[in-house]
């Protein structure tokens, strides 16, 4: 594949390095405005850097966006990453665009504006830190492409009302599915309707984004949640 990486900061540099070392043998080009960073890439990784503005048409022509299989924009500025990907799609019909986003809230608008994939380091770090925090919340593990579904993890608290119940009798939000349970001793179980929920279970579930709160409440609330519609 011919892959263009825009931005030669830490993310862009190591990404290009990984792509070059991958067994698939990708052709990689890095576009970077800062001469010092271009110099560093050229010294360390070879003649794969082009100095220029990754969203200026002249640079894009020179870089050969027209034959790129993938454009990955990883500068530190969300607005630049957005425009790189939008122009790559609109003017050069690049089949796959990936944008790094720094403000996790920008994910929705980027998707809406046609960016194929967004990667948020902030969200990933937050999720990992949340996993370490002693709160019984819900952690997003992964967004599934399209459809608004995601994979989340919930740790069942000691006093949760679901403890001791069978999965079949739980009232879960629509289109929510418990797909994996990891015991407190680390043993994974594929759940069935007969599986009993135990305290401190890590429950991995597929749910709709808008049902997150309801799912978290169903699995962590101490008192019986009110029946729907009341």
């Amino acid at each position: 594949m011919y892959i263009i990486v825009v931005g030669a900061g830490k993310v862009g540099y190591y990404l290009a390095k990984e792509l070059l070392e991958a067994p698939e043998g990708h052709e990689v080009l890095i576009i970077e405005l800062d001469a010092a960073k271009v110099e560093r890439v050229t010294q360390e990784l070879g003649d794969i850097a082009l100095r220029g503005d990754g969203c200026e048409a002249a640079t894009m022509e020179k870089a050969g966006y027209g034959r790129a299989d993938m454009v990955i924009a990883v500068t530190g500025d969300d607005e630049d990453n957005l425009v790189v990907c939008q122009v790559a799609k609109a003017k050069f019909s690049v089949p796959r665009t990936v944008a790094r986003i720094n403000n996790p809230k920008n994910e929705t608008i980027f998707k809406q504006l046609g960016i194929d994939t967004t990667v948020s380091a902030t969200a990933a770090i937050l999720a990992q830190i949340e996993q370490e925090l002693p709160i019984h919340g819900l952690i997003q593990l992964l967004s599934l492409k399209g459809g608004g579904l995601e994979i989340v993890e919930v740790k069942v608290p000691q006093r949760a009302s679901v403890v001791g119940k069978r999965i079949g009798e739980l009232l879960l939000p629509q289109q929510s599915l418990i797909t994996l349970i990891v015991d407190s001793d680390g043993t994974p179980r594929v759940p069935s309707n007969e599986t009993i929920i135990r305290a401190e279970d890590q429950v991995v579930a597929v749910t709709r984004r808008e049902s997150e709160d309801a799912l978290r409440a169903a699995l962590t609330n101490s008192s019986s949640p009110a029946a729907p519609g009341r």
Partner: protein
Amino acid sequence: MGCGRVGATLATWLDADGHDVTVLDIRPDAFKRLPPEFKGRRHAGNAIDQDVLARVGLRQADAFVAVTQGDNRNVMATQMAKHLFGVRRTLCRIYDPIREEIYRDLGLETISPTLVGAQLLKDLLDKQLVVADGEAEG
């Protein structure tokens, strides 16, 4: 959005026309460009942050104009105003004529001061040349 020379002038005119105007700029000292008689609101904040845009009441706005120095900031903010906040009338300044054409094709209301300025200068020059030719002949 953007309280540079153009932004401040436009905001002042709209305010004088009796519109309810909010000026947004990431640098608070940019508001010094607004005259003392400006009655609108000044808001220091990052206009490509949707929380900031919500806080200044963009959902209730009838129009949004992006005139910061950064083409990409303008493009992103305008698209957020249009698609996230449903603002009906938006205007986006893009210096780079090629980028301007691309976003016009994508449905944004855009203006490239580069093209407009160059065209104005050329028209004036042409006019001067015509006058000079006329004088030479006469």
